[in-house]
């Protein structure tokens, strides 16, 4: 597989654009959730803040640093999220995760994932899957703070025993030493 399939032009563009990056001082609205995720493999970190009003995502912004994949992925997530219901956003996170876990067998669906569909090539690079997931796991965490799991349709994303999903969440969630 060629490098170009991993770093598509659109990915490099997003990685430089970093749309939605920067967290303005926070108003204390009930419907805001924030989650911080660390990729233990590289030490890169991201914080995602999601605001929901009337079950619709009002804004998704983020702050962090990392590789081109992780930055592009956060930028794409930002663009995708703002038009969705909270429940829909969770569904897109699930679809994105499924694509990345597929080891190249699932194509990205631009209808569902917007520009993030272009990250499909990442699924062939297991070491980089965490990069692409980082912002999305953080978004999931932020959503959970706002609405109980059922509300976002989170049931579908429940970790299946021993699956990559759970392993990843476990890995990404640092345990205090």
């Amino acid at each position, binding site marked *: 597989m060629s490098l170009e399939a991993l770093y598509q032009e659109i990915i490099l563009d997003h990685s430089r654009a970093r749309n939605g990056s920067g967290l303005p001082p926070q108003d204390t609205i009930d419907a805001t959730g924030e989650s911080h995720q660390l990729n233990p493999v590289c030490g890169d970190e991201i914080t995602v803040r999601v605001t929901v009003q009337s079950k619709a995502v009002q804004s998704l912004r983020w702050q962090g640093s990392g590789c081109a994949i992780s930055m592009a992925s956060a930028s794409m997530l930002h663009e995708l999220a703002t038009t969705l219901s909270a429940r829909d956003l969770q569904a897109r996170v699930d679809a994105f995760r499924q694509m990345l876990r597929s080891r190249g067998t699932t194509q990205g669906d631009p209808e569902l994932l917007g520009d993030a569909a272009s990250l499909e090539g990442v699924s062939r690079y297991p070491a980089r899957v965490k990069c692409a997931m980082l912002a999305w796991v953080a978004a999931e965490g932020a959503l959970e703070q706002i609405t109980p799991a059922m509300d976002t349709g989170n049931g579908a994303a429940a970790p299946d025993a021993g699956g990559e999903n759970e*392993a990843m969440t476990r890995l990404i969630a640092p345990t205090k030493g």
Partner: protein
Amino acid sequence: MTVNNDLHAVLAQPAGLTDDDVRIIQQDFPALHQEIHGRRLVYLDSGATSQKPRWVLEAEREFYETCNAAVHRGAHELAVRATDAFEDARTTVAAFVRAAPEELVWTANATAGINLIAQALGNASIWAERGRGGQEIRQLALKPGDEIVVTELEHHANLIPWQELAFRTGAVLRFIPVDAAGSLRLEEAERLIGPQTKVVAFAHTSNVLGSVAPVHELVQLARRVGALVVLDACQSAPHMPLGLPSLDVDFAVFSGHKMLGPTGIGVLYGRRGLLDALPPVHTGGSMITTVTMERAEYLAAPQRFEAGTQPVGQAVGLAAAVQYLDGIGMDRIHASVTVLGQRLAEGITAIRGVKLLGPPAGEPRIGLAAFDVEGVHAHDVGQYLDSLGVAVRVGHHCAQPLHRRLGLSASTRASAYLYNTTDDIDEFLAALSGVRPYFGVGK
């Protein structure tokens, strides 16, 4: 990799292993095709360490020749291959004992696994004392007056780490005694295991007696009082189908080298959730999230317990070993080795002046038998058998207290595995009959 074509025929059979099957299996084991002092090698020391099939040696070599790199790091292709091979090995070995990959920690050997648990519990005790960690640490901590229960037949590996943990925490080490024949006195276990008991640790099968512990009963006693159960599966994992979760133990250990795998690798199984609650023991690279000069935060299990460069080649080798075992079938191996164990027990019992240790012939035992030759020291017995090409183990087999209880300082042990025929057993028995005459005792 080498494929032993005849093996397919063996695998087509329904149950057990005939001597002909075994002779086909033997073809895969180069070490068995040696002459020792001009005689065919009869290797009956698998309880100490097993021989390795070509399949395992080649898996390890292939790893080094095509995938070798540091795992969980680096973005390059070899690193990806190495990581895949390493984690696939974990999944394979975990499945072998019906566990999830996250429940399996690689260790250097079984001894290191038991030490890891004992030291982690010791660390929990210090952490709790100093207010570090949460509720789960305080629950795991041992305090003066708490008790650790082992049995009198343990291998030193499942005894001394607990003595040291007791010393360190002020806990008291107690033990379930055995009777003069070596049987565990279960009624004593009932008396001993009480609310003060925090850990119950015992061998699944004894490396001296060949007896199988009443796992279910002991687990029940421990569960009743909320004690952790640690199973030493060193002599069971190689020889019988093992479902650790269904045995309902909290921790278990075994060693790769006793089950066709390379040296330098062992396994610690920990019930899901429990491993994550334990403090780490070895610290260093690849087990942290954030490190400052002042402090470190630790990853979840299994990485939390895998500091530094792991035995990757050996993990791949062990995975190949359990594939080989599974290919033949653990139930067939168990059936075959049990038959050999009985043949050993019967044959030994029939020799005048030789006393079988452990369960009498006809009673359950795994494929090994230790014995005492009246008037001849075990080392002389071993030396004599060696001169006839028969390799056995002599000494206290790292179970001094048990030997003392049996009134012995040493014994001789013959232990069989999937590559031993009944002929091997008979050759051994014939050789054993010659020992006392040779040393001029019991005339």
